[in-house]
């Protein structure tokens, strides 16, 4: 089983994003429990497409147990946010090269990144590669020739589906609990080579990110600080004045 997990940092820039951590955990689970566990043929690779600083999260992925790291190098973007369509194309380009010998059976993503929050990269990569995709997968299990995916719908409804390999799944919270990176693994990983890929050209997006602003205020937002006694008094007054009790 060859698994590729696409990762990206959280908003702090230092840790693997929370949803990508779930995806990596899901991948490691399959490697550890599935058929061919522990053999050379069973492998979890991680890939990230971003500036040199993102190397750090590949180290953390090694700490969690990833076997191989791939870094598609881009220059630091001062605004920090890159359209998902660009990331998807960079990843697809890299995957084509990485799959020259054999395909990844499973490519995993977080349900979205913490910074861009778009949830587009996974389904876009799947479309480019012509592979089936399930988004919002809560739980996945390998059944030898197929993947069993439990996905979530509105209202807490869960659906279990069979998916043929090769395929793409994006993972969201609800079952997996990411393990902490182990220091011993991270130290060992210092010698692990990271495959560096330098894209020939960066795809030009058809959308432009203009600016980021603070969310619109929809209510007064009167801030009550001070002692907890004063705060409770303000709270009680608010309820009394509006006859909420």
């Amino acid at each position, binding site marked *: 089983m060859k698994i590729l997990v696409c990762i990206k940092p959280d908003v702090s820039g230092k840790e693997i994003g929370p949803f990508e951590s779930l995806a990596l955990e899901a991948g490691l689970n399959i490697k550890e429990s599935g058929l061919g566990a522990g053999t050379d043929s069973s492998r979890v690779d991680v890939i990230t497409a971003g500036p040199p600083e993102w190397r750090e999260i590949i180290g953390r992925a090694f700490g969690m147990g990833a076997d191989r790291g791939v870094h598609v190098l881009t220059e630091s973007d001062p605004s920090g946010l890159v359209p998902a369509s660009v990331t998807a194309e960079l990843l697809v380009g890299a995957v084509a090269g990485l799959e020259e010998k054999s395909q990844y059976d499973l490519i995993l993503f977080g349900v979205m990144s913490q910074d861009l929050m778009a949830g587009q990269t996974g389904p876009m990569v799947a*479309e480019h590669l012509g592979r089936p995709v399930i*988004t919002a997968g809560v739980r996945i299990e390998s059944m030898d020739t197929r993947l069993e995916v439990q996905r979530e719908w*509105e209202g807490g*409804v869960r659906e279990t589906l069979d998916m043929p390999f090769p395929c793409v799944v994006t993972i969201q919270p609800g079952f997996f609990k990411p393990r902490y990176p182990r220091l011993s693994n991270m130290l060992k990983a210092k010698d692990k080579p990271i495959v560096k890929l330098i894209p020939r050209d960066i795809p030009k997006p058809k959308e432009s990110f203009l*600016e980021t602003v603070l969310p619109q*205020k929809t*209510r007064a937002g009167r801030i009550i600080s001070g002692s*907890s006694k004063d*705060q409770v008094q303000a709270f009680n007054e608010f309820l009394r004045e509006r006859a909420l009790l």
Partner: protein
Amino acid sequence: MNPIVVVAEVREKSAGKNAVRPVTWELIAAAKKIQAMVRDGVGEEIGKDQSPPDIYILVPAQNPLAPAREIARSTGLCTIALAWPFPVTPETLKQGLSTELVALDPGFLLFAHTALGREVASGLAVRLDGIMVSGVTHIRTDLEGLVFLRPVMDNRQVLCVRTLNKHLTVLTLVPGVFGKDAPRGMEGKEPFEPGSVSVREVAQTSLSPVLVQRSKSGKARGSTDFGSAKIVVAMGRGIGEKENLDKVFEFSNRLPGAVVGASRPLVDQGWIEYSRQVGITGATVAPDLYIACGISGSTQHLAGMAGSKWVISINKNPDAPICRHSDLCIQADLNEFIDTFLESQ
């Protein structure tokens, strides 16, 4: 002018008793908003078009006729019922829509930011060489054209996105923010005629699903009656330890008519039952008073409680997004606040 195409969501029930999902009316309201913005000539480029773009509503379902008629009747818009050979799935929706969309050649394609829309829209955008903007919460115009706003940075900021004019733009719109009023016809034309309804059979041969459904659970178990609650005391990640759940329940018990709710992370962690979840993937509540305890305020949560009459948040961090949507932001350690409150009673 390329049309605006809305993909309606229909709840498919047995025996052909289908219902238009409320989010569909919001999509239509947003489509009309975009239509008006284009008609009023925002920006030089868009303004050159004198005639506003048409709106088409696609209704994909196994039995789409009744919901399509309902939409055409209450909006006056041209509605296309797409008869699926089996219940609609995200996988087959992507396959079946692409043929239809190539023919319609839309300028804007609108989906709901729901489990279905999120899964289908991005792939279709790639297939149709469109620009994808997901999770849109606001649309406005500036001198150059339309600008789409969407949350970023863990909901702490909002990103303004511009797409190329004259290029397909695919949007997923967050439910609960575009107005739920059943839309009316074009201004100045009321009372309007019902829109036309055409029916197209989607051939089984045009769909090639590889995913196989094994099972589907019904609604999550447990029931929380938010409907009659005057006050909802909701808690989030900021409560810290699991032991603090009891404290929030104690707090709620002192407020007559209060019911305890929660944000998604606590439900995902298994700390509290699903039926208490407030947000897009949980319950929508509209009590007289909503008290958000240790909730940072994700878009998905805000959409579930925005209709509350009054909102008080109790949070350590005054920069948390929830503060911008609260009447009162109590900047406090939740435990300390509740302890003091209980003592004051």
